[in-house]
């Protein structure tokens, strides 16, 4: 994405969310480039999900504006925003099979039935669930279910896809393969992705830039390299780098053993 001049896909200005007396987001502003993969890292309760819900229009901000392609979309309904969202626990339609899950929404978006099933079939194939297409979600593994959720989101061809801890319920192997899948999809569709994770290593491996948050505030938005080189403050240093260092250290011991 560094070859072409970057255009701004999403821009957020002074986003504030207050519940009663509690300020959950405090004048948060940031921008996301077209085709960028942005991760959001931060401790539990710092407002990550709140940002995502406001971006897609499921939640109303107390103050602030959301722009997409330069247009103010703050007042639009979720379906008018051209965004998709993938949740941690999949939120699939359990009473429909894989194919129907992907196809369902298309029917409401003025697609003909044939066209809808054509699009859905391609997507089901794309995420590698062709054999499973007649099964209900309850019969699938967690990783397979998350693939269905991703295919369902892709069906409406959103240019921005939001992920709220999509891998937290999955085992390590599945995470690694899904990680690659998501990156492949991003490359193929040119989507802009905003990705919440609790896994520093995952954020570093997948992201173009990482946003580090603490209780409703952004501490730093930067490329992984820059965060390593120049952590904005002591908090970023501690929350991101020390965490990573611990993992590296514990692995390094064993790698030494192996090479000894």
């Amino acid at each position: 994405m560094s070859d072409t001049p970057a255009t701004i896909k999403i821009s957020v200005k002074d986003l504030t969310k207050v519940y009663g007396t509690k300020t959950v987001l405090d004048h948060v502003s940031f921008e996301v480039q077209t085709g960028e993969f942005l991760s959001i890292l931060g401790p539990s309760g710092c407002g990550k999900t709140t940002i995502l819900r406001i971006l897609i229009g499921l939640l109303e901000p107390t103050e602030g504006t959301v722009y997409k392609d330069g247009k103010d979309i703050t007042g639009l309904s979720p379906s008018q925003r051209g965004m998709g969202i993938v949740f941690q626990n999949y939120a699939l339609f359990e009473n429909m099979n894989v194919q129907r899950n992907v196809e369902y929404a298309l029917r409401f978006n003025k697609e003909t039935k044939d066209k809808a099933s054509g699009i859905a079939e391609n997507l089901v194939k794309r995420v590698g669930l062709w054999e499973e297409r007649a099964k209900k979600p309850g019969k699938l593994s967690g990783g397979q279910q998350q693939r269905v959720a991703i295919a369902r989101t892709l069906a409406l061809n959103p240019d921005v896809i939001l992920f709220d801890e999509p891998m937290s319920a999955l085992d390590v192997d599945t995470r690694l393969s899904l990680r690659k899948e998501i990156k492949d999809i991003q490359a193929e569709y040119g989507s802009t992705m905003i990705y919440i994770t609790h896994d520093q290593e995952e954020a570093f491996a997948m992201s173009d830039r990482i946003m580090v948050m603490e209780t409703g505030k952004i501490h730093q938005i930067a490329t992984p390299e820059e965060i390593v080189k120049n952590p904005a403050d002591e908090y970023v240093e501690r929350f991101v780098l020390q965490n990573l260092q611990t993992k590296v250290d514990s692995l390094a011991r064993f790698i030494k053993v192996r090479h000894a």
Partner: protein
Amino acid sequence: MLNRGSLHRRTGASLILKICLVIFFAVVVVLPLVRMLLYMANADIVEVLTSNNFKKATVNTLLVGLITTAITVPLAYLLAWCMERTNLKWKGLWVVLISLPMLIPSISQGTGLIILFGANGVLTNLFNLGGSIYGMHGIVIGEAMYVIPVAFLMLSDILAYEDSTPYEAAQTLGIPRFRQFCAITLPFLRRPMVSVIFAVFSLTITDYGVPLTVGGKVKVLPVLLYEQVIGQLHFAEGSVIGAVLLIPAVIAFLVDLANRDRGSNAFISRGFDTGDNKRRDILALIPCAAIGIFMLLPVLAFVVLTFVTNYPIDMSLTMAHIEKTFRVKGDIYLRNSLIISTAVGFFGVIVAMVTAYLSTRMVSPTSRLLHLLSITCMAIPGMVLGLSYALAFKGTIIYGTLAILIMVNMVHFFASPYLMFYNTMNSLNEHLEAVGLTLGVSRPRIFRDVIMPQCISTILETFSYFFVNSMITISAVVFLSNTFTKPVSLLIAQYEAQSAFLGCTAFVSLMILGCNLVLKAAVFLIKRAINRSN
């Protein structure tokens, strides 16, 4: 201030719906109760409360409640334990037999006991029994038969969800059985047991069917209320007794509310392995078969009484009792019952489902109010509700129609179905509507296409609950029906004291049982077909 998107418009529509439902519950629950409480002013309250009849009835009511609860709960626990912790033979059969009383009116337990143990009773003659079934012991036996199935099913449910890992840990540590019971079982049972005890106690002290038939000289408060209002049209005095009956019910409700386990059973880590123990399995057969067969006895007696000319003098077969039942319009009353029960099922399911949807999946302060109103229905004894309705709706167009009977039953039986929907909808993924909105699928469509299909089994169960209970109830409807709208169950109350009609009441009980069995079987088959197709 900013957002004018459809999500928030819909939230407005739901608020209007919620407010409508709150008003609805205020009109059908709160208003009638207030009316009844105000109506007490027309009576000399002190005189009612200090009368000898009232004092005696109060003592009797409490005694019946305490003795029945003390007998029923341990017995039901034993039965539930046998079902859940042993490899007892023919489990399904015993469950069906033990639950039989839930399919016939409480008053049928009374007539059943008279047919079995009365002066000319089937068993009295067979075993040459002396003594009389009438009195306190008769009431206790009848009420026990009426409430054992309820306690049994509640306790089976609790035991089915108990976690076995603490016991396995205790066993590896060599802790003896009795110590395990004290240290693990009792603490686990404490909370659910309180719910069971209060449910049993409330049911027992508010029933008039059993004591009316086998009470003899022993009067309890519901019978006093029945006599005041039905016999003498003393509505004001009735209101005072109704208010008194409301007190324990409300206490029971509040205790249950405070006690209700907020945790979910979903996180059970391991079920019980019933293992292999032949002797235990055979021993378990004794209580289950004994109680199961005992529950079947009244039904068998109904069959005998229905088809025998004049038990025990003339044992020839006859259709005379059936014909006589139809002569006193039994068929029309049966039709009333079927209409009422079907309508209660239909409307009850819709209202319970929508209310539960609003209170689980569109949470707001209004939905909490709605939730509270919904479960409050549980606290009101049927007779009290019926009396309140009689006082509140007299003179309105629904009074004296089937509509008021449908409404009162719906309110009377609303809480359990509501809670079933509440649990089902709570267990569905919380983001379904959000996903729908991002995909351009509206909330009502998600409700229709995703939520409702996943509630099919709850819909069937709640329909069956509303239907069966409306078929067997005699409490709320007794003050509200007339010769045209009477449900068939009340025919038993009407003729219970006339031995010439024993054959008719037996046949009526059989008809009610038959309808309920057919419905239960249909629900069972539909559910199985759905499970198979999945």
